[in-house]
């Protein structure tokens, strides 16, 4: 049976570490991975009219993030059945529950000691996730020092 896991991300390589650690214990069972990016929707009607989540995602993916994601996919080639990035706009329990149910999420992995970066218009979904009574697994990821853009990829190798 396919299992669906959800990992909140902020499009930094460091946040992918959660996914890396989450995938390690699984044996050969196929896994569907959903990477969740949380942002507030814009208030402006014209913005909303032309809003597509694909566009948001493709604007945010950095070359390093893409490389890091590909590294993880290549590493767990046999396990990952499919992987997609979803944007989450809600900010209450109901919205989160609907999102999780719609995506058939079985388990949520959250980093225990890493704060997702929340630039303008975005928020960390971790407090919401903690409050929900879903099956949550906290993982410990190491992020010891600040990295420049060029060095971001290093954080995957800790």
């Amino acid at each position, binding site marked *: 049976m396919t299992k669906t896991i959800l990992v909140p991300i902020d499009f930094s390589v460091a946040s992918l570490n959660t996914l890396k650690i989450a995938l390690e214990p699984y044996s050969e069972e196929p896994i569907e991975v959903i990477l969740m990016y949380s942002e507030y929707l814009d208030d402006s009607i014209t913005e909303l009219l032309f809003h597509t989540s694909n566009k948001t995602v493709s604007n945010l993916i950095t070359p390093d993030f893409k490389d890091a994601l590909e590294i993880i996919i*290549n590493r767990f080639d046999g396990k990952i059945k499919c992987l997609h990035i979803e944007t989450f706009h809600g900010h209450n329990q109901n919205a989160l529950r609907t999102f999780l149910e719609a995506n058939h999420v079985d388990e949520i992995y959250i980093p225990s000691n890493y704060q997702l970066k929340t630039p303008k218009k975005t928020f960390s979904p971790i407090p919401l996730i903690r409050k929900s009574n879903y099956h949550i697994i906290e993982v410990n990821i190491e992020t010891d020092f600040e990295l420049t853009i*060029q*060095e971001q990829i290093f954080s995957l*190798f800790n």
Partner: protein
Amino acid sequence: MKTQTKLAIILGFLSTTLVVVFGISVYYFLDKYSYVDFYKRLEARVSIATQYSLNSGTLNAKYLKSLREQHLEALEKEKEYLIEVSPKTSFQEIAQKNNLPVNFLISLSKVGTYNEKQGNLFIAGSHYKKGNKRYFVIVSAENYYVSNHLIFLRTVLIGGISMVILIVAIFSFYFSKHIFDPIKDITDKVKQISTENIHLRLENNINKSIEISELTNTFNELLNRIETAFEIQKNFISNASHELGTPLTTIIGEADFSLLKPRSSEEYTIAIKNILQQAERLNEITKSLLFLAQTGYKGKAITFEMVRIDEVIWQTKSLIDKLNPNNKILVDLRLLPEDPKKLKVNGIQQLLHLAFANILNNACKYSNNKPVTVHIASSNSQVIIIVEDQGIGIPESEIDFIYDPFFRASNTNLFEGHGIGLPLTRNIVSLHKGDLIVSSQVNIGTKVQIRIPLIKI
């Protein structure tokens, strides 16, 4: 001949020919057409004249005549002849009388209707029989259009063509002079590069045309290869002389020391044993050098082949294990891709081996054999190898110079080295179209990231 001049001449010649051919054909066809048109007009007049001359006296003829006079434009020097031909009078007589060419009359009598041009005079005629009498109806006129308009057209065309030729000449001269500017630039820059400053590269401007940037790239790749070969040689010589020098010094020292004064046989035995040991080491080095020369550089062209990066790293590790048994190199396989295809690159195994050996040796050397981690991972387009050490690091202000040959960072005085390894490694990596990124913090460690594109299958 310079390509520049050649190009200008070809360009000029081609455009001139085109314009001249165009002008001549316009003139020629218009000229032709104006004749045809004018003959038609004359023929129309001939047939009308025939109608009213031969049926003169009838009402019809009268109307026709007035119609012709009123509505048909009088042509330049238009003359109308109605000549009765009797067998008695010869054509010469008629011709002289009417001032008409004899040949025309002869042809007319044979053919029936005939046109001819005599100088500027156009003559059209027809040949009729009424009862038992024969008539020639002839109309002659000058073509005003030909004599004036066509001459004007000729002037315009000649003027136009000479203008075009002038413009083309100026333009092709300018164009040919400036199209080769980038190439001239490249030539000038390549001239500046010699063995002294072989690390210089041509600037590649993206705004330039594709051909030029390809040329620049080709030059840079060529320079990379030359520099690599150059530095391999330098590296080899300095390593070899050092390696050969150490045992020789020991041998000389040991022999000198023994000869200082008479010694006991035990002491001689020890000395000779030492000498033998060093001589054996020397022999081994010479043998391995010979082996290196035989296997590595047979003078054959170096060919790219499919190389598995993890294999190269394991080989390098085992080599370093032999050379420096105290090393603590850990190969991290946690992110190794499941698919072995994602580890294959198009490369030269020996050079890659050399590059990784350099990096790993540096990592061990400058960290005094603290643990060194090698991570292997691969994205969909590149293999990424990261070598992480806990060594002395590189001062931030000096990190820009680490690829300069013979540059050594200020904190490396305690370590032996020549400042050749890293430039060599970078050249090897760029030969494989990869990237080498070094980031470092003093006394914390250095991270070297090597990215090499995967082979395309």
